[in-house]
């Protein structure tokens, strides 16, 4: 299990527990966190779960597939620390992770 903090673009912050193996997109949807839509159900195919991973956590959140890279490249507000939350699975390693959300997803 990991405590994950989701910070909306307006600064509103919510911290929830996400069970091991559950994606951080699912973690947001299950807890009704707005700003993460998850339209494709977690296939790295819609980019509506785009988040910014806090500094220093990059090597713990796993690698980026070719499709994820292509989708991020087309997303609004792409940054070096951009990820698709559906491609990151919760584990004890990620306990305390903070995810910021971009202004818009589409």
């Amino acid at each position, binding site marked *: 299990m990991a405590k994950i903090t989701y910070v909306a673009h307006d600064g509103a912050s919510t911290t929830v527990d996400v069970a091991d193996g559950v994606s951080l997109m699912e973690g947001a949807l299950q807890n009704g966190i707005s700003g993460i839509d998850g*339209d494709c*159900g977690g*296939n790295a195919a819609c980019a509506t779960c785009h988040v910014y991973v806090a500094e220093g956590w990059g090597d713990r959140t796993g690698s980026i597939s070719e*499709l994820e890279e*292509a*989708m991020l490249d*087309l997303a*609004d507000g792409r940054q070096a620390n951009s990820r698709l939350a559906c491609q990151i699975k919760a584990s004890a390693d990620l306990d305390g992770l903070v995810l910021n959300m971009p202004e*818009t997803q*589409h």
Partner: protein
Amino acid sequence: MATQPNLAAAAPIKHTVPREQFEYTWPLPPRHRPDLPEYTAGSLSAYLATAPLDEVDIADPIYWENDCHWTYFKRLRDEAPIHFTHHNSNRHRGYWSVTRWADIMAVDTNHQVFSSDAHLGGITLFDMDQDFIMPMFIAMDQPKHDVQRKAVNPIVSGSNLAAFEELIRSRTQEVLDGLPRGEVFDWVDRVSIELTSRMLATLFDFPQEHRRKLTYWSDIATADPEVPGNLQKEERQAVLMGMLQEFMGLWNARVNDPEPKGDLISMLAHNPATRDMPPMEFMGNLVLLIVGGNDTTRNSISGGLKFLNDNPAEYAKLRANPELIESMVSEIIRYQTPLAHMRRTALEDTILGGQHIAKGDKIIMWYVSGNRDERAIENPDAFIIDRPRARQHMSFGFGIHRCVGNRLAELQLKILWEEIMKRFDNIEVVEAPERVPSAFVKGYKSLMVRIPA
């Protein structure tokens, strides 16, 4: 000895006939149709329920005009989820139908293997006219697709659309306030077309008094030249060239403004990422925005009203709780599936759902079927306005070509339903709608309604 049957001649083809070996003729050869001279929606549905899967060409517009394709897609999902159609291949070269959610997702997300390139035929079941290709990024592969999409993307992103919201709302209010009470009228013409054309004219800052031109061009761009009454190929191309010219005029008038105005044309003309692109490509992108945003939104506007009428309990839920509009908008778009399919061309031999796909094969992703796949969506044939996870539908496609205008479409529908619920307790559909005869644009020609006095 009895003569041997000529197996070679009778054997159905299993792969798309290569374009080089295919004789394109115009008009196309006549269709083989079911032997039902006096067909009705009922008799066509009954036929599709038992016909051999291989003897059906579901691209035939009669099935769509009569809204009876459902049975056939259910059979394909259950019995032959990756299915090749050779029937009528002298018209379409043969195509694979992909009908399950997961398989469609696999094709849509594999842009390395499944191409959208206009020069291979493009993104619809029938190949794009090879002598009239307007460059638009929906029918391009990487890397060019990405460059052009990125140029258009900010224009239809949520933050930019917020600036249009008040204008869209006031235009919506005007249209609704002008509707007659106690009188039968066509919702498609008075509301769906009127609203989408006003909204498009607003977004492009196109002269409002000429807004129906946008509708006309969009209709022409997608109209099937085979359908009696539609423009022939050459006439159609001439009309589209006229449209390009008119937009060039607006472009030229705005490109030298000291500061860009807020409309889409000014934004394209001034944005450093887009202002130096060749004019034809800008035009292709504009056309894509017009066409992409027109029929689709229009038919979602019509469909929503029809679904609420067909499902009075859902309509009652909405009256009791207008907060449901947001999830209802997604459910309307799923249930309507305004584009029934997108097509790809295989760039190499591959295996899809156990079937061998050859390089050059045409693959049809039937979103209309994926959106009713009981393997992915619970109770998919029901229209449920507060469906959990209503956003998880495939009407906008997936992967790098996923609809870039999705937020704009959702915003338009949301504002419309908010304004409808403030004004009208009930809008009754009084007769069955007239449907568009197309396996691509899934929609309505007319929908007669009455608002009680």
